[in-house]
């Protein structure tokens, strides 16, 4: 059964003028998103390079794709680094964000004030975050480096951003510092909007806090948690600014995320044909991750409903 619109809107829909009103948005979408995407895919089949002579966009078929699949270990290394970064940041941010949201929900009275303080890192520009942490972790003058050495967590001649084994964990923690408040905010909003009845019924039935958390809070929050994970996952996959400022992708290729690699191919080497393939692959991976994730969530929900 379809719901019939009433009034002016209904009159307009009846006369088939809705597409006219949708047109501006559709045109913008096509011009700003679909057009460039199609152009990018088109370029990926050419040898277009701003750097090399006679590379004026000649058709090369799947050469660029073949190069990516067979002959570019740096791409795959960046890909693995990025997946590791996404997995680590999203896990830490989700767990810490959930913990903080529960703490704020159950135990903090001046919730708004604490929340405002918590949100500060998220409101800073990523470049500012990168520069700030770079200064704090500077080997000789960095405040944080100094105190980490004083408490014995860091060797006298160890600098977090220059040490191969420490650099990625450091960057993950900086990202967690910046984005955990976002997770907290969304989850807290979700908790505050949950209906009270199931909780009251559970308490009446004698359920303890852990049982309530596992069997009521978490299932009810599932969609919001999924949304947060998805948003943070996509965002982490695109991470560029902070890491670029902090390490430039180094030492070696230890922190060369896919976004940095894509930038390097496109804007350092100006190899735009191959750069389009790399960018396309990033898009493809995000798309696959999103759809797999989406399917998983809805599959779980459908299973729960069937029960």
């Amino acid at each position, binding site marked *: 059964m379809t719901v019939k619109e009433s009034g002016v809107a209904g009159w307009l829909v009846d006369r088939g003028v809705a597409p006219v009103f949708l047109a501006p948005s559709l045109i913008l979408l096509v011009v700003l998103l679909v057009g460039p995407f199609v152009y990018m895919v088109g370029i990926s089949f050419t040898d277009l390079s701003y750097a090399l002579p006679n590379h004026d966009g000649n058709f090369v078929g799947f050469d660029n794709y073949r190069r990516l699949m067979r002959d570019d270990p740096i791409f795959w290394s960046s890909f693995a680094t990025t997946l590791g970064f996404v997995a680590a940041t999203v896990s830490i941010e989700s767990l810490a964000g959930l913990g903080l949201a529960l703490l704020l929900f159950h135990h903090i009275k001046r919730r708004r004030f604490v929340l405002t303080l918590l949100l500060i890192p998220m409101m800073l520009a990523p470049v500012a975050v990168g520069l700030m942490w770079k200064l704090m972790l500077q*080997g000789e003058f960095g405040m944080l480096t100094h105190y980490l050495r004083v408490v014995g967590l860091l060797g006298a001649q160890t600098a977090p951003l220059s040490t191969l084994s420490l650099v990625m964990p450091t960057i993950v923690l900086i990202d967690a510092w910046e984005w955990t408040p976002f997770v907290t905010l969304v989850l807290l909003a979700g908790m505050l909007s949950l209906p009270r009845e199931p909780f009251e019924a559970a308490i009446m039935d004698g359920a303890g806090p852990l049982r309530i958390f596992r069997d009521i809070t978490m299932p009810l929050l599932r969609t919001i948690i999924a949304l947060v994970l998805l948003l943070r996952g996509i965002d982490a996959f695109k991470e560029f600014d902070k890491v670029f400022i902090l390490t430039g992708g180094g030492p070696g290729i230890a922190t060369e995320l896919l976004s940095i690699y894509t930038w390097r191919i496109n804007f350092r080497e100006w190899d735009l044909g191959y750069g389009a393939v790399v960018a396309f692959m990033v898009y493809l991976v995000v798309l696959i991750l999103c759809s797999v994730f989406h399917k998983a969530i809805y599959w779980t929900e459908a299973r729960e409903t069937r029960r």
Partner: protein
Amino acid sequence: MIKADSVALRRWRGAAALALGIAMMAPAAPEAGAWTLEEAAAPYRGVTIRTIGESLPPLEALAKMKAKFEARTGIKVVVEMYEHSEAVNKVMLDLNSRRGRYDFILQPHRELGRFVTNGHLVSIDKFMNDPKLRDPSFKPEEVLYQRLWKEISWYAGKPYGFPFTALTMYLWYRADLLNDPKERAGFKAKYGYDMVVPSTWRQYTDLAEWFYRPEKGFYGTAIQGKRHEALWYEWLNFLYSFGGDMMDVKSGSECGPIIVNSPEAVASLEYYKSLIKYSPSDTLNYFWDDAMAVMQQGKVFEVIMWNDSTYAVEDPKVSTVSGRMGFDLIPQGKGGKVGQVEGWTYLIPKYSKNQEAAFLFIQWMMAYDQQLEQHMNGGASARPDVYAAPQVRAIPYSKASMDTNAVAIAKPTIPESPQITDILVRELSEALSGSKTPKQALDRAAVDMHKLLGDCAPMRYPAE
């Protein structure tokens, strides 16, 4: 005969002296038909020319000096200043879009091949052969360091501009500590020879080791180990000095056998890496700004650093070690006396609508007076006569700069050279971080360079 000759000579000298006296008494007006900037610029009065370059003292000096040119010619000059990579990227986009936003550009010379082979530039010959534009008193073939001019502004035997800055790297050291009697005595007792300005890499290491006192926050040296162009530039000093090179070619615009993984190159990287242990803990995240900062703060004994940064370590307003520094050529290895040179060059894009006005400005900037003023304000002139000026000679680092200019070595400027730089930066960083051995890293660099350049660049040393 001899007598007659001497009488004639005396007469000639007398006439010449008289003519010179009259000439000196006469007003400074140009003789009829002589070239003047004002007349040459008259057709372009009211035109605005725009340029772009790296936001550093040489360009800041130019931005201040341009008012004089504007007053004389009526040509307005707009200067855009950006960070190094940003200045390069904006030019690349402008040239490829063919918009012609910039009438002349200031770019690192490693980009030259890209610009020339893609047909983005106009050869400077076009203007130099135009008597209306060329100042007859400007003779670049006489007044510039020829090797530097050809390295920085020529491509495949053709001139495309003039050096904006002739940048070289040389040794910076703490002269006060080197001359400290207590330090000298201790050093001699440990190493068995007098503490001297290092002329060999062995001496350089000994000094770095001797002054490495991390417990006091003082370090022997600092290397620019971040994954950044700075790393490549710095290592080139070691590479050249150890007798290595990237390719076996005679000029930057040639493609030839790859020798970046030669035994000399591997030895140079092994040595370079060995300096990490005498450097600050964060040295693998340093680029030129960081290395200069620790030097300015008096925390390091010796570094290899750029000539256009030297003013900053000698400026008492921003440096704690001003007046206590010494400067010299980098130590010598198998390669003898060498210097790594990078220049920023004036170039005129084909798409500029005001090429002639741009040339007039560039020519004016290359004149002695402007070069001297720019050099005294943080520039790095490519004119030897500027270095001969008393005020320049009085600058403590002038000699090191001149000596390095004289032994500068060419680096690739072929269209692929920025990609070669990227490959090497990545592999050098891998070697320094310990992910690869120097041999593995340079072998990999050689393979990737060969893939990039193809048949014109065979690998002389097979990769393992």
